[in-house]
């Protein structure tokens, strides 16, 4: 509303009520210079009331400076006054605050305006010379003013109930009998006084009257009439301000000549479509609230438009806002808007009112975040405002915001929002990381599985070859097994591949193993993962791990790291094997060297040994010193224990009692050596553990000696051993051969000697006898011999 600081003719500033009810009307009366005496009682009282509860004054004010050029209505809607547009825009909001629930008719309750309103009302002593003639002209548009009919009374009547500004005394409406337009004429003094304005409020007009001789009019007010069509004003080419609030206009029309028009108020009409505004290039304010508009269109040329009010229409969405380069305020309250677009193309938009719409996600209005100018926004009455994340999401995304839902955004709120947003961002990143990790894990496992399959194929092929030519090689499990696992994993592969990003795929190719600690479970995938047992695990982690799961690792490779496992994870109680190529019962022997095993789970997949009905009993038998509780998830019963003993007890007995002592010693020696090693390695620990260890070893040595002979050597080691034995054998063979040959030779010589000896003896005796037979010659010979010696 105008700040009507004095309405006297020479007052430099003229205030004009543009619209309004209550106080605004009073204002208007004052502004139009009606003296209180001239206003009918009813209106006086109204004005009085207005004066007393001014709280909702009219706001759109046009200040006319009459001093320099009196007849020029000057719009102080200048952009330098920041209060003006704000006030104008607020009028719609106002509606909700005021008890009146008016249709968003205007009115800013700022104190300054209030006082000015009051002053205008009270000072409104200025005589208002407005003369109106109802001219019934036979001409369709600009009826002939000469034809005058005394229809005064009717008009008076109308005047009675209509606005106070038009008094029958001054205005003559001349109507003809023909269905035509009334012609309006004003008295000359009025014309002089208010040459640039004309107010025809509440005149029950059904058509626009022909306004003759008022080409200088700048302001025209048709509020609260029943006008259905905009007509007869195309001659008012200097019109700047046109108020058609609260009429029954169904289409925007007849404005094409009003090129100077800057304020067009068409609120509370029946307009269905924004159209025919092509020539109004200077339009500054366009009020279309309370109509039936379903879509924003034909406004892109309004590059000077600063205020657009589309509240209480039937808009379902917001777009087509390009070209509104000056728009600073956009009112879209009380529509059915579900999404907003193009707002980021409005470089000057500062205030946007979206209250009471149907916006439910921030994504549907996300273009708002891109607007740099927006400082004031409302979302109240939308589903989105009910969300817990609403405030901080909006604040976080629109840092430039100064007001949200009519409340000043404090620094604290902004901080909170950013904190919350940061948290959320972190959470998101974390979960993303998690899912990335998960995906990577899946990929890696998949990759490991593929490698495993390849390896299995290769191994079984080799095994087949070996079987073919060398019956000594222990054969592997058959191809059928490998085949089945492959098919199982290929399925998995297919489903995995679909969800992969190429980057991940690149990553996964290089990963051949995976180590994962999840709670109390240590999962190892791929033989490379066994290296992790060399790592330094924190005491806490190592202490927590009670389950160790092996997947896609050759059991023989696991066997080699079991001593390490025992050291690094002393609490591991549950072992899981899946795809580990367990094919023989004897492989379980290897587990006997662990400290404790409470549970054993051997997945049938990739472990053919589980198909043997005896495997469980063998495990129970061989690992009886662990007193295992569960095997493959099934509780071990006493019957199982007895059964195991019955089945394999004799084997143990035979192994212990019938093995030649030298071998028993060597076998046990191995076990003892191992225990000793263990002791050495664990000596840094508490004495209690060591003594327990001792007990253990005692038990092992005592109760379980009979089982110690049942040990498992991995295939590679065994082959090495066989090679070694072969070497030794070769050597032994040669050695024995030599020995035996020598012995037989000696034997032969001996036999030959034995054969010759009797004959030889006889010959020898005979020779001796012959020699001594001639005593004399023998004596001589002897003597000769003695003398020769001397």
């Amino acid at each position, binding site marked *: 509303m105008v700040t009507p600081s004095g309405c006297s003719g020479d007052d430099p500033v003229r205030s004009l009520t543009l619209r309004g009810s209550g106080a605004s009307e009073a204002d208007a009366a004052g502004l139009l210079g009606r003296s209180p005496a001239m206003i009918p009682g009813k209106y006086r009282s109204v004005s009085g009331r207005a004066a007393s509860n001014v709280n909702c004054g009219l706001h759109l004010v046009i200040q006319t400076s009459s001093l320099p050029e009196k007849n020029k209505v000057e719009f102080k809607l200048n952009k330098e006054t920041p209060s003006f547009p704000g006030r104008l825009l607020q009028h719609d909001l106002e509606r909700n605050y005021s008890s009146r629930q008016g249709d968003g008719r205007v009115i800013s309750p700022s104190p300054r305006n209030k006082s000015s309103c009051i002053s205008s009302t009270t000072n409104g002593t200025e005589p208002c010379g407005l003369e109106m003639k109802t001219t019934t002209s036979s001409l369709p548009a600009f009826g002939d003013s000469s034809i005058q009919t005394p229809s005064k009374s009717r008009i008076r009547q109308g005047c009675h109930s209509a606005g106070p500004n038009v008094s029958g005394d001054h205005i003559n409406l001349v109507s003809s009998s023909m269905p035509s337009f009334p012609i309006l004429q004003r008295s000359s003094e009025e014309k002089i006084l208010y040459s640039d304005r004309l107010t025809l409020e509440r005149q029950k007009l059904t058509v626009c009257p022909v306004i003759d001789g008022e080409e200088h009019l700048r302001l025209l007010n048709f509020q609260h009439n029943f006008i259905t069509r905009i007509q007869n004003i195309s001659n008012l080419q200097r019109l700047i301000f046109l108020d058609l609030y609260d009429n029954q206009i169904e289409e925007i029309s007849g404005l094409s000549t009003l090129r100077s028009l800057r304020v067009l108020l068409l609120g509370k009409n029946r307009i269905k479509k924004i159209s025919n505004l092509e020539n109004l290039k200077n339009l500054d304010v366009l009020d279309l609230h309370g109509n039936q508009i379903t879509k924003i269109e034909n406004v892109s040329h309004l590059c000077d438009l600063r205020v657009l009010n589309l509240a209480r229409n039937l808009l379902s969405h917001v777009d087509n806002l390009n070209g509104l380069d000056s728009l600073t305020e956009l009112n879209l309250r009380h529509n059915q808007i579900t999404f907003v677009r193009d707002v980021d193309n409005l470089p000057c938009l500062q205030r946007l009112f979206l209250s009471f719409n149907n916006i439910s996600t921030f994504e549907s209005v996300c273009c708002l975040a891109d607007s740099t100018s927006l400082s004031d926004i409302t979302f109240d009455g939308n589903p989105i405002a009910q969300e817990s994340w609403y405030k901080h999401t909006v604040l976080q995304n629109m840092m430039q915001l100064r007001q949200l839902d009519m409340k000043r955004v404090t620094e604290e709120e902004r901080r909170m929002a950013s904190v919350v947003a940061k948290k959320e961002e972190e959470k998101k990143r974390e979960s993303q990381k998690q899912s990335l990790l998960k995906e990577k894990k899946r990929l890696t496992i998949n990759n490991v599985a593929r490698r495993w399959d390849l390896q299995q194929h290769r191994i079984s092929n080799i095994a087949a070859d070996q*079987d073919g030519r060398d*019956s*000594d*090689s*222990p*054969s592997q499990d058959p191809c059928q097994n490998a085949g*089945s696992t492959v098919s199982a994993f290929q399925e998995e592969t297919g489903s995995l591949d679909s969800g992969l990003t190429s980057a991940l795929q690149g990553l996964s190719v290089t990963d051949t193993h995976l180590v994962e600690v999840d709670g109390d479970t240590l999962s190892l995938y791929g033989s490379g993962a066994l290296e992790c047992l060399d790592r330094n695990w924190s005491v806490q982690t190592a202490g927590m791990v009670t389950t160790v799961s092996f997947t896609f690792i050759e059991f023989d490779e696991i066997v080699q790291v079991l001593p390490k496992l025992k050291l690094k994870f002393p609490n591991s109680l549950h072992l899981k094997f899946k795809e580990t190529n367990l094919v*023989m*019962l*004897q492989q379980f022997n290897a587990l006997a060297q662990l400290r404790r095993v409470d549970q054993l789970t051997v997945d*049938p997949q990739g472990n053919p*040994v*589980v*198909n*043997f*009905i*005896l495997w*469980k009993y063998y495990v129970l038998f061989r690992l*009886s010193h662990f*007193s295992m509780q569960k095997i493959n998830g099934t509780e071990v019963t*006493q*019957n*199982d*224990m*007895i*059964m195991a*003993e*019955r*089945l394999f*007890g*004799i*084997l*143990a*007995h*035979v*192994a212990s009692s*019938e*093995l*030649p002592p*030298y*071998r028993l*010693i*060597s076998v046990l020696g191995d076990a003892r050596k191992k225990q000793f090693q263990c002791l050495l390695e664990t000596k840094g620990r508490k004495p209690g553990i060591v003594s327990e260890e001792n007990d253990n070893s005692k038990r092992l040595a005592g*109760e379980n000696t*009979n089982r110690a002979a049942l040990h*498992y050597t991995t295939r590679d080691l*065994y082959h090495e051993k*066989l090679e070694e*034995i072969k070497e*030794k*054998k070769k*050597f*032994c063979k040669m*050695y*024995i051969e030599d020995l*035996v*040959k020598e012995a*037989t030779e000696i*034997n*032969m010589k001996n036999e030959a000697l034995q054969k010759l000896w009797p004959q030889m003896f006889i010959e020898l005796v005979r020779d001796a006898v012959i020699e001594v037979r001639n005593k004399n010659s023998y004596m001589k010979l002897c003597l000769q011999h003695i003398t020769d010696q001397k």
Partner: protein
Amino acid sequence: MLSPERLALPDYEYLAQRHVLTYMEDAVCQLLENKEDISQYGIARFFTEYFNSVCQGTHILFREFSFIQATPHNRASFLRAFWRCFRTVGKNGDLLTMREYHCLLQLLCPDFPLELTQKAARIVLMDDAMDCLMSFSDFLFAFQIQFYYSEFLESVAAIYQDLLSGKNPNTVIVPTSSSGQHRQRPTLGEASVLEGVEASLFYQCLENLCDRHKYSCPPPALVKEVLSNVQRLTFYGFLVALSKHHGINQALGALPDKGDLMHDPAMDEALERLLVQIPGLVNSVTASPEASCLPSRTPPRVGSPWRPLHHARKLDAESDGSTEETDESET
């Protein structure tokens, strides 16, 4: 040293033929292997123990396959050890697959070849039912023949093939390592008319073979007995008959008679002692050890290819003490 053969052969060959050399070599080998332990209690003691264990037949326990099959004595000892250790499995009434038997064999001899087990299973089972279940005794006796007379059977297979193809096998016998593979059963058309070879002719060839064969072979008289019962027989019919022949089992001397297969009082006693030692065990076991019907074992058999049909048939076969193979051989 006093045997007459000793005079016929040079000493070295004699020792080799009697496998003395084998044991001497092995003894030295073992000595080398365990020299640290052995040096503690004396080499004389070691040799005593070694040759004692050879006599008792316990020297083959957990040894490598090449040693186990090196001498007939070792083979017999292994058979006996296998029977003693896993008699309880048979006693429990479990029927096992070839692979499971193989696993048991591997418990005693880690590098026992699958091929031998497969061959033994082939004696019991039909060609197309290699993954069927076998009773312990069926497998054990078939395994005995296959393992103990392994080389002999290969030669027999070669002879059989020659006879089938109409050649006179007496001219030349070349046992080939791959002979185990050729066992084409006659096609159905042939089978209805003539299956296998004529027993008498087959016997002549075998007799000839036994005379010349340097490996152990079943006593010719018993082979004659086996073959005299029938007119014609197939190779596998012959093997089944061999495996079921008491005389051959006795001659081999490793295993008790079929009827006594489950009896081994000494071991049972030892087992009872072991059972008592199981921690926390109630005395119910010792109270009625024989009567305690062991819990029926029906562990989940994942993806087991066992055929119930065969299962039933096998049980029948066991009850009347003969297998299909036998029937076949008698036709």
